């Protein structure tokens, strides 16, 4: 209800297009466009009003434009039922979207050198970030990677907005063969990077954070944790994150993130409740061997 918070809209689809291996949908959503800050995402209802697909699908906002009163675009690849339904949308269809959600990427106060690292569809949120950084006078260098050439997202745009753009593919079909972290050190040295921003799978974020650590620079990472509501209600999207007070908490990726400081995320413990996390069961409670699993509503 507050002016700056997320809104829910039934937004007309303006365009549907293909961007390499991705589908891109642009919807008219002025209230979302005007609130948007880079790093935030949308939660899109799929399957129609009576659908058995109950959960919204989260997608990073890839682009925001002022035309038609404010449009936002997201990119996706077809994975399962929800994204295949989305891939069939046509212009003028209505999409129920909630956004902008999540904490945006923090922007540096001064013009510094930023390296932006993306894996697969995780490249999507880095484009509005690059524009925002450029507007602040920052130097931007891209390192974008994917499994195959057509999954490297928006390579041409990357070359245009950044000082340099380095590409990696696991099969070597485009750019350097290997992973984004392989050339990352060299890019950091050449560009004299001060900060890294990254989005992609958890393993990649861990690796980027390790490289950034080695260069004693901060990393801001955006996690793609699976989400049921996207609005902070359900507690499904938790990751173990160390707070300012040194205490680990299971925090919600959708509202406390998706952007976190890399060194604060306990990557090795994702998918577990670390024994020292606030409210973790003591060793005694852990000996029940999962017998208590099940309903325990909540």
């Amino acid at each position, binding site marked *: *209800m507050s002016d700056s918070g997320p809104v829910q809209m039934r937004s007309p689809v303006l365009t549907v297009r293909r961007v390499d291996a991705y589908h891109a949908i642009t919807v008219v959503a002025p209230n979302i466009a005007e609130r948007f800050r880079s790093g935030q995402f949308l939660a899109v209802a799929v399957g129609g009003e009576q659908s*058995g697909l*109950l959960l919204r699908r989260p997608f990073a906002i890839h682009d925001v434009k002022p035309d038609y009163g404010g449009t936002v675009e997201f990119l996706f690849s077809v994975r399962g039922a929800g994204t295949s339904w989305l891939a069939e949308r046509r212009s003028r269809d209505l999409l*129920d979207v909630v956004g902008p959600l999540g904490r945006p990427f923090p922007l540096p106060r001064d013009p510094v050198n930023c390296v932006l690292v993306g894996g697969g569809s995780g490249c999507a949120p880095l484009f509005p970030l690059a524009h925002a950084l450029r507007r602040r006078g920052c130097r931007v260098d891209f390192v974008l990677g994917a499994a195959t050439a057509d999954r490297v997202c928006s390579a041409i745009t990357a070359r245009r907005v950044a000082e340099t753009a380095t590409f990696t593919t696991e099969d070597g079909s485009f750019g350097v063969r290997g992973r984004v972290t392989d050339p990352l050190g060299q890019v950091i040295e050449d560009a004299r990077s001060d900060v890294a921003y990254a989005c992609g799978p958890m393993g990649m974020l861990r690796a980027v954070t390790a490289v950034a650590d080695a260069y004693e620079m901060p990393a801001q990472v955006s996690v793609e*944790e699976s989400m049921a*509501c996207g609005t902070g209600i359900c507690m499904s999207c938790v990751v173990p994150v160390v707070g300012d007070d040194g205490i680990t908490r299971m925090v919600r990726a959708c509202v406390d993130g998706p952007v976190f400081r890399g060194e604060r995320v306990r990557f090795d413990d994702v*998918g577990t409740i670390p024994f020292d996390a606030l409210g973790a069961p003591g060793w005694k409670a852990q000996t029940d061997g999962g017998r208590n*699993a*099940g309903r325990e509503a*909540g």
Partner: protein
Amino acid sequence: MSSDLRIKLGRMELVNPIMAAAGCAGTGRELARFVDLARLGAVATKSVMLEPRAGRPSPRVAETPSGMLSSIGLQGPGIEVFLQRDLPWLLSRGGNAVVSIAGGSASEYAELARRLSEETGVAMIEVNLSCPNPADSGRDFTDDPAEAARVVHAVRSHTQSDIPVFAKLAPDVPDLVGLATACAEARADGLSMVNTMRGMAIDPATLRPAVAGGLAGLSGPAIRPIAVGCVYRVHAALPDVPIIGMGGVRTGTDVLEFMAAGATAVAVGTVNFADPSACARILREFEESTESRGVVRVGDLVGAAHRPHGAALGR
């Protein structure tokens, strides 16, 4: 003419029968960005426990046809922080606060009830009985009528008499009517029905349970017929015990259905995840449908399905 939406839930009066279900409204703050909480009949908080709790490992949810499986493990800040931070916030927004409590023993529940009784503004205590009872080899309190009654009795005895105590039951128990009766005899002022039911999904890629906890709680429209059936059976057996019905409510029509089965109020759960403004929409839809049916007082709808044909609606 518009219908009178007010209902009496035991001694409590609600402005309308639409509530947000426990664990499906966050602390209220998250939902308040989409729904004016003061307009709802009540908001049930996520079950609060004595101590902070980190919950279960992820993945915690899986989507199933028209539903979801969840095993959050009652992650929460504990009663202290709840009383300092969450409850005052909800009250400041004009929310009618139903506080859900959960524990591992009757004395934990009693202690929570005692703490809540010292606060002003708690409209109702809802006792979440779907918690493992370590003394009963980890079975839920709700699985055994005697254990459930023990908890309800402990809570009632430690709660100020003007705060109603509702017992929240799970649908997949051996003897639902027996359980409901035991809770009523232990002086529960009413019943909340239903909680999630045990289920499982297997990830076809790994052939392992899709939710880390293994068995998880099924909720959403998939369980609605089961939930309506539970409300119907218990209302038939205990017509004087007020019931808050829930389980897969998605539209205003679903609210009518629960009320006709015997619920006095109806809570919206999982559908809040799919549609964060669902509570407001459902209230609007419910209002429209009672109006178009010429219902004078929506309270007259309660139990309509139990009445003989032709006498169903208070026209």
